[in-house]
């Protein structure tokens, strides 16, 4: 269970970068290339180890012009999924 005060970040061996040749974002990990969808990319870009999940939700609420309460559940669900896959750590 993720706390809203947790500060998620990518582990050292997971890299989020733009794949210029194929015009998409990719996550690079040992022997893996994953393609996060647009929302996952927006969330992952904010996972810098400094922002709390609360702060990430607030920032996305501004960006998407949606009430924080409405998107918080989806963001936590996504982060939980990413954590289970080892793509973020807290």
């Amino acid at each position, binding site marked *: 269970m993720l706390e809203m005060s947790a500060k998620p970040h990518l*582990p050292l061996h997971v*890299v989020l970068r733009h794949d210029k*040749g194929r015009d998409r974002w*990719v996550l*690079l990990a040992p022997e893996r*290339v994953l393609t996060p*969808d647009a929302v996952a990319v927006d969330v992952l870009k904010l996972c810098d180890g400094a922002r709390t999940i609360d702060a990430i939700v607030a920032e996305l609420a501004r960006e998407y012009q949606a009430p924080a309460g409405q998107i918080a559940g989806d963001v936590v669900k996504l982060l939980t999924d990413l954590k289970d*896959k080892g793509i973020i750590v807290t």
Partner: protein
Amino acid sequence: MTILDAAPVAAAPICAVAPIGLLAELTHRCPLQCPYCSNPVALEAADKELPTAIWQDVLRQAADMGVLQLHLSGGEPLARTDLEDIMATAGEVGLYANLITSASGLTRKRLERLAELGLKHVQISFQDAEAANADRLGGAKNGHVRKLEAARMVRELGLALTVNAPIHRQNIGNLGALIAMAEELDAGRIEVAHVQYYGWALANRAALLPTREQVNASVQVVDAARARLKGRMQIDFVVPDYYARRPKPCMGGWGSTSMNVTPTGKVLPCHAAETIPGLAFDNVRDRPLRDIWLTGAAFQKYRGTAWMQEPCKSCELKEVDWGGCRCQAMLLAGDAAAADPVCAKSPLNDRVRAIAEAESGSDAAAFTQRNYRNAKATAPA
């Protein structure tokens, strides 16, 4: 390359514009002498290796054309004293760098420097979980102990660690112990890789091929470990295809996801491609990497499905397994365009099963060690 598929982070589709991965075989020099080495039996000499500047240029070209993953391999890549210079370029151009190593020669100082330059992941091969047998197989005194030390150092520096465990008849009984060892070393991943029979492994097949019962037992060990370690350690499992009913989709299809540059600069669709007579390989010294990938004769030869014969041509799985492995078709059927004989649909499949049964049941234990002396003895003229 293994691909995880689960939304919202979906598996990357294969893209023909460029390979996803580039295997850089920096050298064939290696302090180990494993009898199943994937290098060709004709090893390339040190004085013919590409210089630093050409490797750096290859990496720049690779990143520019869309390669994402770089595998720094060999031989033993640490045998190159300029590995750090090559790694520096990989870091600069944003290639995700994996070091595929025996760990011999991996000092803390070198590893720290490589990590600073952007190295993310280290894969260390282990010959067995039992030191004496591991050192006998690898042919290097105290090799196993040094590997354990190196693996701990990798984790201390926060890099991702993969334990690569080649499995065969002379260590298959210790598979459970190898998985436990990887767990104890805090590896994020273990590759349980049944040896594939090409090159050195083919020459030593009678001493290495496990029995069907041993293979089935290994599947059970892996299944149980996967259930136990879910979410903690990922287990990639490569089965020995001599007992399969369908062939492996070798390289995800010829010339579709990966390319291999040899120590002297030849560009191959896979590491065993030189065993196919008549294929002409371009060299990075002569042509741009992108041209070699897109139009090189060796890449075009078995790309897609147009080259196929029956039973592949009309097979509903032809775009699933791509007819299996071209090199294995060459080795076992004498025709690289034939169906991989490990496929149950191949007319030669009975022969493969007979070989597997006879050789795995033999008590042959002696093998030829992989080294330059034996390479000269076994290399084709």
